[in-house]
């Protein structure tokens, strides 16, 4: 199964290799979607993980024990349905195809499960209907 996580570091554990722990101890397949480290040692990583459910659960626990803040990302793109006018400006700029035009209704359908939290859609929306929560 696939899950996406937001993992936050601090000065104390910023040198540790999260990916190594996940691969060597839990046989998980990590894919780093986003990573940044600030000057004060604070860091943030958006990670997609593929593996067995029990191992994902165990890995989550293990990272917390190591002092990382671990949060599974559920719904990432928030869309204000009252503002959206179904123009489609978000559709072709999404690298993973979160937005599709419904063939019947011509509404723009949002599939949050594909989102890699790149934020490309946020600036593309002319009515500020989209935001990303990490």
């Amino acid at each position: 199964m696939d899950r996406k996580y937001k993992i936050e570091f601090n000065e104390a554990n910023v040198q540790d290799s999260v990916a190594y722990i996940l691969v060597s101890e839990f046989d998980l397949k990590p894919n780093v979607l986003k990573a940044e480290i600030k000057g004060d040692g604070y860091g943030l990583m958006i990670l997609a993980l593929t593996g067995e459910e029990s191992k994902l659960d165990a890995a989550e626990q293990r990272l917390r024990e190591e002092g990382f803040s671990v949060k599974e990302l559920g719904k990432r793109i928030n869309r204000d349905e009252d503002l959206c006018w179904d123009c489609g400006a978000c559709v072709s700029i999404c690298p993973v195809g979160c937005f599709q035009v419904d063939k019947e209704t011509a509404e723009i359908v949002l599939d949050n499960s594909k989102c890699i939290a790149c934020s490309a859609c946020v600036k593309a929306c002319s009515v500020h209907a989209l935001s990303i929560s990490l």
Partner: protein
Amino acid sequence: MSKTYEQINEKIRAGKAVVYTAEEVIDLVRQKGAEKAAEEVDVVTTGTFGAMCSSGAFVNFGHASPPIRMAEIRLNGVEAYGGLAAVDTYIGATALTEDPMGGYGGAHVIEDLIAGKKIHLRAWGPGTDCYVRKNIDTYITLDDVNDAYLYNPRNCYQNYSLATNTSERTLYTYMGKLLPKMKNATYSSAGQLSPLLNDPHLETIGMGTRIFLGGGEGYVTWPGTQYKTNIEEVNGVPVAGARTLALIGDMKQMDAKYVRGLDITGYGISMAIGVGVPIPILNKDIMQRCAISDDELFAEMVDYSEPVNRPPMARYSYAELRSGKIDYQGRTVRTSSMSSLRGARDVASKLKDWIEHGEFLLNQPCLSFPTEVSLKKLEERGC
């Protein structure tokens, strides 16, 4: 067989007019042929709902006591024109506040007015013997003002090029975000539902044509600015931007759902407007043209990273564009629309509903628009 405007209006008044949208009518004409369909159908409704920058509103505020001749005007901080009579103004859709990247402009003021919101009016004048006052600071609503009507110098572009970007950097344009190396391409026309693609030579559309504008009744007033006719045609329809319409409509009838302020990143402010034009089915030729479908309508792709000349790179049908991806020299380019098809359908259906219920009669144009026009360039001269 042919019909007149008056015959069609008689049927509308009697609640017996047969009305199809420009999408619905495609199958009917395919099944029955244009001749049979023309006997059956009285009106075809078209619709479009997209960004139309060349739009704006005339407003008359009414006189305060003591009165002022407003020379400089701000509505929610957005600049409005102060070069008309004392309390008349025009606010353009793309007008900005002092913060050009603030994301709020003339189109948002217009949307807010139509939505019934209070608008902050500040104005300054020279102070004259007849208009002694030098400034005013108050709040207005659409109900408070004497007149408020959209007058849009250029709407309803007849077709529009597909935009892409061959460069290495992302471009932020009025055609939306264009990713580097042609990862995407955006288009604007409503295709088979679009007003001027269904009556490509404006046989039925001219000055005085009554239309759906922003949720209310409006009129075609003039050829739109940059109206041109010398564009190559395929299946009788131009493959690039050609004719346009100037439109007018009372804002007090409108619905903010169909008039939306847009903040287009890196470009600025624009306004999305829902426009629907009814096409009277006077004869089988008009019927045939209304039955055109997305696979018969084409747009040319141009490169927005070219700052000056943008020669067409390729040509695609709207059916291909709507599929979400096209092929350009062996590579896949993702496509998406900048205008709302859902909204365009909503407009065409609403107009259909008005006509079916006898609430909207067709108006025969009192002036036809030019048939041969080419555009002039702006020359830079010393004197």
